[in-house]
């Protein structure tokens, strides 16, 4: 049978709507693609899926019935990995789960379940890293601004942590790679897009944008970081394993003075 290409809008609801469509139409051979990265198959049939919250919710409810809490968040985590082909893996996982009497999310002998669990684990690790590595800088208009470039799309996962912790300050965490951010206005967190000047260097603290005291605290933090190190125990290999170099760019303590 011919493979159908299903194109969705890149959101989790969109993906779940696609799954709904697959089950409704009893399709067996499909390829699910995000509209931003979709490749036109020359000889295949393309269907554009419309995101419908109600259908998405129905699928998600089914998932929650069929999987443990851990299993369903693994699905969501894996989705956020944005790894190419992950949608098809997820669909495979869900088909299997829906067809079984018992909960299957510990059945690692099933290849898709094992793969999803592994992907979810990497996404989880990235989430923790971002909770640790976001560095806020105070802007002139008194907003704490942090920029990140995570390997995976973890902003939705870290929102709760930052909201609980920084309840009394306005903050923005901006994902430069994906071009969107979270903005907390002391009440709620909203998604936001920002237009930055061309060639804006996120790693520099420019006094056109940032408060004067920001420079002082960054300096103090760098001094602290240096002073708390014990030279005779130096172990750069261990250091880099904990803080891989690709994250250094945005760490205040790792900036050249």
């Amino acid at each position: 049978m011919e493979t159908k290409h299903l194109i969705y809008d890149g959101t989790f609801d969109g993906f779940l709507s696609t799954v709904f469509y697959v089950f409704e139409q009893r399709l067996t051979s499909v390829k699910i693609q995000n509209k931003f990265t979709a490749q036109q198959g020359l000889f295949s049939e393309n269907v554009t899926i419309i995101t419908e919250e109600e259908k998405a919710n129905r699928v998600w409810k089914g998932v929650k019935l069929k999987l443990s809490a851990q299993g369903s968040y693994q699905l969501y985590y894996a989705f956020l990995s944005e790894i190419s082909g992950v949608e098809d893996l997820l669909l495979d996982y869900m088909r299997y789960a829906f067809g079984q009497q018992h909960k299957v999310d510990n059945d690692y002998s099933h290849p898709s379940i094992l793969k999803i669990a592994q992907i979810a684990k990497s996404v989880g690790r990235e989430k923790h890293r971002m909770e640790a590595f976001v560095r806020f800088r105070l802007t002139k208009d008194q907003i704490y601004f942090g920029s990140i470039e995570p390997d995976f799309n973890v902003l939705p996962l870290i929102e709760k942590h930052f909201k609980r912790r920084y309840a009394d300050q306005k903050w923005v965490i901006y994902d430069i790679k994906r071009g969107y951010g979270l903005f907390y206005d002391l009440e709620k967190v909203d998604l936001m897009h920002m237009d930055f000047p061309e060639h804006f260097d996120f790693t520099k603290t420019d006094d056109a944008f940032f408060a004067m005291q920001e420079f002082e605290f960054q300096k103090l933090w760098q001094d602290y970081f240096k002073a708390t190190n014990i030279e005779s125990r130096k172990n750069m290999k261990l250091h880099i394993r904990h803080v891989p170099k690709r994250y250094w760019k945005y760490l205040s303590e790792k900036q050249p003075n």
Partner: protein
Amino acid sequence: MSFQRTQEKLKILADAAKYDVSCSSSGSQRANTNKGLGDATGMGICHSYTEDGRCVSLLKILLTNHCIFDCAYCVTRKSNDVKRAAFKVQEVVDLTINFYRRNYIEGLFLSSGIFKSADYTMERLVAVAKKLRTEENFNGYIHLKSIPGASDDLMREAGLYADRLSVNIEIPTKAGLKKLAPDKKREDFIKPMVKVKNEIIQYKAEKKIIKSTPKFAPAGQSTQMIIGASGENDFQIMQTSNHFYKSYNLKRVYYSGYVPISYDNRLPQIGSAVPMLRENRLYQTDWLMRFYGFDVSEILNEQHQHLDLDVDPKLSWALRNLHEFPVDVNTADQRMLARIPGLGMKSVFKIINARRFRRLNWEHLKKIGVALNRAQYFMVCESNQFEKRDLTPEKIKGLILQNSTSKYQKMLSNQLSLFG
């Protein structure tokens, strides 16, 4: 806050505080309920790592490095020729809040040299914590050092604002303490520890009756011992440690390899190596005691006063007790499973889970992630392939070391992970 003066003080007082190795910021459960700043409910985050590979989660500083005492092993000692500085209470508060708001840290770890008197010093430490909690609405983590000799009243107040309190006993034996810190008494360390322990018990009891009873040092107490400064052996260290865990309900004992900082001839000289591997072996022993069901006397006793450096303490115990092996993984209880060298507690639980469904063979064990290179000599499973030669302890040790050279070398080059 004048930037330059604060900067100078921070350099001095962070440098002097860095030898305290505890950096834990977990176990507090202090939630952000007042829409204030911070939250200490989670696991505690390492926001960065120093170049020596240690977790940076707290702003770890001394309030001052002026001190009236002259403990030989300490950089802050009176007779040492170093620059002295003292923070104002408000300066520490400002630094903590501003670092916290930028997501640099989980909170504050404040210690101090003793200036004027124990109470005078403790009062100021408490003042910092109180300000953070009551004026700044701060819910992040606060670890205060209990100053030896501080009064009960101050210790009680400290516990109301701090998540964790600690007194470092530093020197594992009384004789060592007498030699290196003649003007300090063991009793002075113990007194605040006892006070805090009793208060924790009392507050917990009251909490059960009246829900609104405030938290008292919810992350408990800890202490630290310096390793390799006063000639004590591993047996003495772990005996002391065990005593402190049992008698004072400590959450953690930290072991800190002595970093030479002085030409005092009572101590290892500057330039001698920090005993990091030994430190790691002590941590492993500590884990065996706390999580693996070992009694400390099984690992260290009159006959075995030193931990092996070339193999971990569990393997070393097993080699001395080959009559307890091999263990059948399909029938053994948790206690014995936990004693198989190379098997972490995670693997133990996985085995117990998995064997409910089927009898396990080597393939199964590999699949659930058991590292067999050490374990294989000490167990049997659903397979007739197992170690049938009657090997001597030396032979087994040789075989294991031969197959794990890379790991063994890593250990020697400062690898500090436990039972990796």
